[in-house]
């Protein structure tokens, strides 16, 4: 420990390491953005095809096949909601990355761990679901 560190009680984080870590975090953030665009594009196409299928089904005369198709389409509709949950998870992860990146910067400048608060880790993730299955219902 150098004389300055002993006097302040702070640990210096190598600037080069901080810059490298921040670069990695920013790259991860950019990749999450790309994942979000892919998801949005995929769900836009799926929704368009789904709407077309719905219209075709509605034009069919009543039959057992039509009923079976309707049940399958309702199940598909539940599954198609994956994009909303996935997007919220991406947004939450993006905020975590930004918060850690900012924290690293502060740590490098001041070397003070007390001033390094990862704000978004405190906020629980809004998505707890592990599978795309219909959620619970509670009437008050």
């Amino acid at each position, binding site marked *: 420990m150098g004389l300055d560190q002993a006097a302040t009680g702070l640990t210096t984080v190598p600037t080069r390491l901080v810059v490298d870590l921040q670069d990695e975090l920013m790259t991860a953030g950019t990749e999450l953005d790309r994942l979000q665009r892919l998801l949005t594009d995929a769900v836009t196409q799926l929704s368009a095809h789904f709407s077309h299928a719905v219209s075709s089904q509605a034009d069919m005369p009543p039959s057992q096949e039509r009923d079976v198709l309707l049940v399958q389409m309702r199940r598909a509709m539940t599954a198609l909601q994956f994009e909303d949950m996935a997007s919220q998870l991406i947004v939450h992860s993006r905020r975590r990355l930004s918060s850690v990146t900012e924290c690293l910067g502060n740590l490098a400048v001041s070397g003070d761990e007390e001033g390094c608060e990862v704000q978004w880790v405190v906020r629980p993730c809004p998505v707890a679901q592990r599978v795309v299955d219909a959620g619970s219902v509670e*009437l008050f």
Partner: protein
Amino acid sequence: MTSILAVDDSASMRQMVSFTLRSSGYDVIEAIDGQDALDKIGDRHVDLVLTDQNMPRMDGLTLIRELRCVDRFKRTPILMLTTESSDEMKQAGRAAGATGWMVKPFDPQRLLEIISKVLPN
């Protein structure tokens, strides 16, 4: 025709909700967040509100509190449809004046059953 205000910032969710409701004969007013919902309803008659929680500008709980301050929305059924499933959030919803809490994703048939149940006869 029974009119339902559907509020969600996700375009795909609005599409799924609207399709489910319109195919069962409901009129649907779509809004992208709480502020947009307040802007769009104006003097329009709304029989039921279905809202997400996490949205830009105004979230679902704030929207419920705003609506409950308006005389004509004091008794209107308001259902939350959200990914949030914690007891704390549900309690907050109940305190704000929500009629019920549905966790995403929704099953279309179940959604229609719940709506029929809470709509005034």
